[in-house]
């Protein structure tokens, strides 16, 4: 039997993961609702004053996005690990790092992208002006893939470990710090008239670096965990 060509294999992995996610729509939905609930809790905690909320909004939305995408990380490999599909992936003739990249892409499409789409709505609740909403969406669009990419390393390392969820957050959250700083910073910078260009460029740089190194590190981690 011939093994499929690399683009075919990648498309196959991507499509399969999207299909699995669509069959378990509740999971995708849970992440999204978690995001919305966490953001909605902040005004209840600090009071409804619009001026305060407006300054807090970028940070709140970003921290909630961080937590939501971290909660979803468990699903990235756990299902495939449990049913043995992951071992087949590791054994496949195609480079594991690229297959992993396809999986991460599917994961981002089902967890990260919905957050980006909902974020402007939440921003409106915090009375953000239109310009800030645009920057918020742009920063999330550049930043959430980085979260998925870095998170994949942690998810691969903690595969099948006891206390995996809490451990995963301990490993991954400190590494999220730069993304949080520049993601939330972009919105604040545009609000204060500095312009968000520098922040967004840096987020783009993080994305490119993570695209190169994270799938590779994830592949190494998966081999350690699966063997």
């Amino acid at each position, binding site marked *: 039997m011939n093994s499929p060509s690399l683009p075919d294999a990648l498309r196959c992995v991507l499509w399969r993961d999207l299909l699995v996610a669509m069959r378990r729509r509740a999971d995708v939905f849970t992440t999204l609702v978690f995001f919305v609930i966490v953001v909605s809790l902040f005004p209840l905690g600090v009071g409804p004053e619009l001026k305060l909320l407006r300054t807090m909004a970028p940070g709140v939305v970003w921290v909630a996005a961080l937590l939501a995408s971290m909660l979803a990380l468990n699903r990235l490999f756990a299902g495939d690990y449990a049913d043995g599909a992951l071992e087949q992936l590791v054994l496949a003739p195609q480079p594991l790092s690229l297959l992993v990249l396809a999986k991460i892409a599917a994961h981002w499409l089902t967890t990260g992208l919905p957050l980006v789409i909902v974020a402007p709505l939440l921003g409106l609740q915090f009375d953000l002006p239109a310009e800030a909403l645009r920057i918020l969406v742009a920063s999330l669009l550049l930043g959430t893939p980085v979260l998925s990419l870095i998170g994949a*390393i942690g998810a691969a*390392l903690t595969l099948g470990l006891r206390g995996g969820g809490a451990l995963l957050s*301990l*490993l991954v959250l*400190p590494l999220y*710090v730069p993304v949080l*700083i520049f993601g939330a910073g972009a919105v604040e910078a545009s609000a204060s008239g500095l312009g968000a260009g520098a922040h967004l460029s840096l987020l783009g740089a993080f994305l490119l670096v993570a695209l190169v*190194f994270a799938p590779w590190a994830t592949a*190494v981690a998966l081999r*350690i965990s699966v063997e």
Partner: protein
Amino acid sequence: MTATINWFKYASPPAFYPLTGTLAPWFFAAAAVFGAMGLYVGFFVAPTDAQQGEAYRIIFIHVAAAWMSMFLYVVMAFWAGVGVAFNTRLSSMMASAVAPTGALMTFIALWTGALWGKPMWGAWWVWDARLTSELILLFLYIGFMSLQAAIDDPRRADRAGAVIALVGVVNVPIIYFSVQWWNTLHQGASVSLTRSPSMAATMLTGMLLMALAFWMYSIAVVLLRVRCIILERERNADWVKQLPEPQR
């Protein structure tokens, strides 16, 4: 035949184990001597600071601990990387042995920083760039140790720990600079750790002596800890069984 040095003699646990036993007391002694000298210089010789009074004297502990905290992370990542690259057991054991001391140094740096911050800035904690990145460094240490603790198979623990240590070491500069930039954007230079550039020579001497003491202490403790790890991991090996009882 030319006489060559066998560089890898001490890369094997049976050869390294007796060496650690011989060296550790010397490093402890050196730590005590340098520590005594450094504290004497720090408390009795160094002059009182013109701006900060006596409170600045915590610098002699704080700076040494902060240096070690950052340096030990690199050492840990180095040994973890060597362990994965060359598949040497002892290197990975060294990485595991360094981590708790590194975390301790980070904690001491944060703690003494808080004690120093209260009289100087009027607050135990400010979101200064260095404090924040030091705090994140502590999280990175804790992550490394918890990951290793959660994995039962020592070989998997070594290699998984190496991945997270190396990812961390790549990220440390990024985190440091992003925190620094975040800080300068948020608040102006209202709070700054930078002291007046001219520092009395005796202060510098005291700081260097204390840094040496912390170095020696760290080496000694890491050697003792790696001894325990070697015994634990190699407990079924013949050479461990042949050790005389008190050494075991």
